[in-house]
């Protein structure tokens, strides 16, 4: 066997050293990232649980010193997020179906796909400002409906993107089979393609709901927030993120505590939705693998 020269050995050692150092830095980076994020979650939960009580769910926001909870904000969020998803998700699905089943690689479809990707990451604060201009100012005031509309505009591109992605995973053989049985284009999509992709589309909708549930900035311009109980869609409506924003910046400790509790509730909700979406996605992937 040939003897390694000193130079070769030194170079080998140096290469190994670089590899070790960079690997170590990566491990450190991962550790740092996890520690930071862990700290944030720990802070969130320790403070959130401290302010947690049944009153959070049963009582509306109140004056400082008068107790109170977040019931009106929770209900307001549910209404606006629910309505936003109900408006945004079907349109998003149609866009996704258009991109995957009809438009495909046509010029117009490419434009739509590009624009949808831009909207997907557009600053949400601008969506709020936009809805303020088209639906708050002209219609005479802040309203829950305007809030829902802003959330719908944010949800739509998310659902569109996931729908397109999941429909592309539906085997062409399903479409061929349906066409060969004499189904028209709309029947192929409605009766075979969409049911086959149901789990995946549900994933997209859940992810979109998770995303808009935490949106704060657009609601500042649209539903504004409301300290009283109100389910009137034409009036300013409370929401959890806005309540957190107002309370977190307030000088009253009990409000700050409620803000932490609210933030914890939203985060738990968002994480649960994300985990649920994973299951629905796994379900559809399993079905196609079978």
């Amino acid at each position, binding site marked *: 066997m040939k003897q390694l020269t000193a130079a070769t050995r030194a170079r080998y050692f140096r290469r190994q050293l670089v590899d070790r150092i960079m690997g170590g830095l990566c491990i450190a980076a991962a550790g740092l990232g996890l520690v930071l994020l862990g700290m944030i979650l720990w802070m969130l939960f320790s403070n959130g649980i401290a302010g947690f009580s049944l009153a959070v769910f049963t009582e509306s926001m109140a004056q400082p010193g008068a107790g109170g909870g977040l019931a009106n904000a929770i209900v307001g969020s549910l209404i606006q997020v629910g309505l936003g998803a109900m408006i945004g998700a079907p349109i998003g699905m149609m866009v996704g179906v258009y991109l995957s089943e009809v438009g495909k690689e046509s010029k117009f479809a490419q434009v739509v796909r590009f624009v949808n990707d831009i909207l997907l990451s557009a600053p949400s604060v601008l969506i709020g400002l936009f809805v303020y201009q088209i639906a708050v100012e002209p219609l005479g005031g802040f309203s829950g409906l305007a809030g829902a509309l802003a959330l719908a505009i944010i949800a739509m591109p998310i659902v569109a993107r996931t729908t397109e992605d999941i429909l592309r995973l539906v085997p062409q053989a399903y479409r*061929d089979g*349906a*066409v060969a049985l*004499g189904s028209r284009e709309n029947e192929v999509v409605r*009766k075979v393609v969409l049911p086959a992709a149901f789990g995946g589309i549900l994933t997209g909708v859940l992810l979109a709901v998770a995303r808009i549930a935490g949106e704060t900035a657009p609601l500042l311009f649209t539903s504004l927030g409301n300290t009283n109980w109100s389910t009137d869609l034409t009036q300013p409506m409370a929401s959890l993120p806005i309540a957190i924003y107002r309370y977190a910046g307030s000088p009253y400790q009990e409000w700050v505590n409620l803000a932490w509790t609210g933030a914890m509730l939203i985060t738990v909700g968002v994480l649960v939705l994300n985990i649920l979406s994973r299951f629905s996605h796994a379900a559809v992937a399993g079905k*196609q693998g079978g």
Partner: protein
Amino acid sequence: MLAAMTPTPETAKPAIAPMQAPRVTAAASAPVTSPTRIKIDHINAFYGQKQALFDVNLEVPDNAVTAFIGASGCGKSTLLRCLNRMNDTIPGARVEGQIRMDGTDINSAEIDPVQVRTRIGMVFQKPNPFPMSIYDNIAYGPRAHKLVSNKAEMDELVEKSLRRAALWDEVKDRLGKSGLGLSGGQQQRLVIARALAVSPAVILMDEPCSALDPVATAHIEALIDELRKHTCIVIVTHSMAQAARVSQITAFFHMGKLIEAGNTDQIFMAPKLDQTQDYITGRFG
């Protein structure tokens, strides 16, 4: 009238090959005497700029199995997809010429391709049951075309179709289970049953056994032989042996042209053209 014709010249009379040698299999039995179901007339097909079929002429008889054979890319699958206008779904695909089914040109402008496809069933290379229950798979066609008016009729139709596809006994206890849970061979029979449920006059099969093991293949072949009593079947296959076993008529394609067509016995025992002979013996040898 007997159906198989040589592609050129047009005036060629149906070629009835005299029995010359022991037949390859029992399935390829007596000469076909049933009437023509589909008449393919000067078909040219294009995918974009590329021409996939060149002036194909062929008559497909009823109550018989017609096999399309030839190397990959020879146009046999393209022709099959012309027969139920599946090529319409491929962007850039274009078909010229006439295909007459029972005298009607299905390529003509006023024909609704969807109506054509309801009369012509198709079975694909890979089994493609829809991701729904066995029952719903069979019921898909009848529901889409409103063939039955109540649940009892539908139950009856589902059972009948599954029986015809020789699958009923294996799945009758789990009709509500997903069709994707079946074995490959069962899935292919399920798909055949799904096609049968709308009582098509013609069934097209695109290499229906290429994804199956020998036992499942034998099941499907037996089924095909049974089905041909009532339907016209066209099968594309890359397996010479399968063509010999199941078909009565064989058409040999090469580079987009129909080289020779005739009684299966004649094609395999005494092909008229050297090209056919070479292909068949090459594959067998």
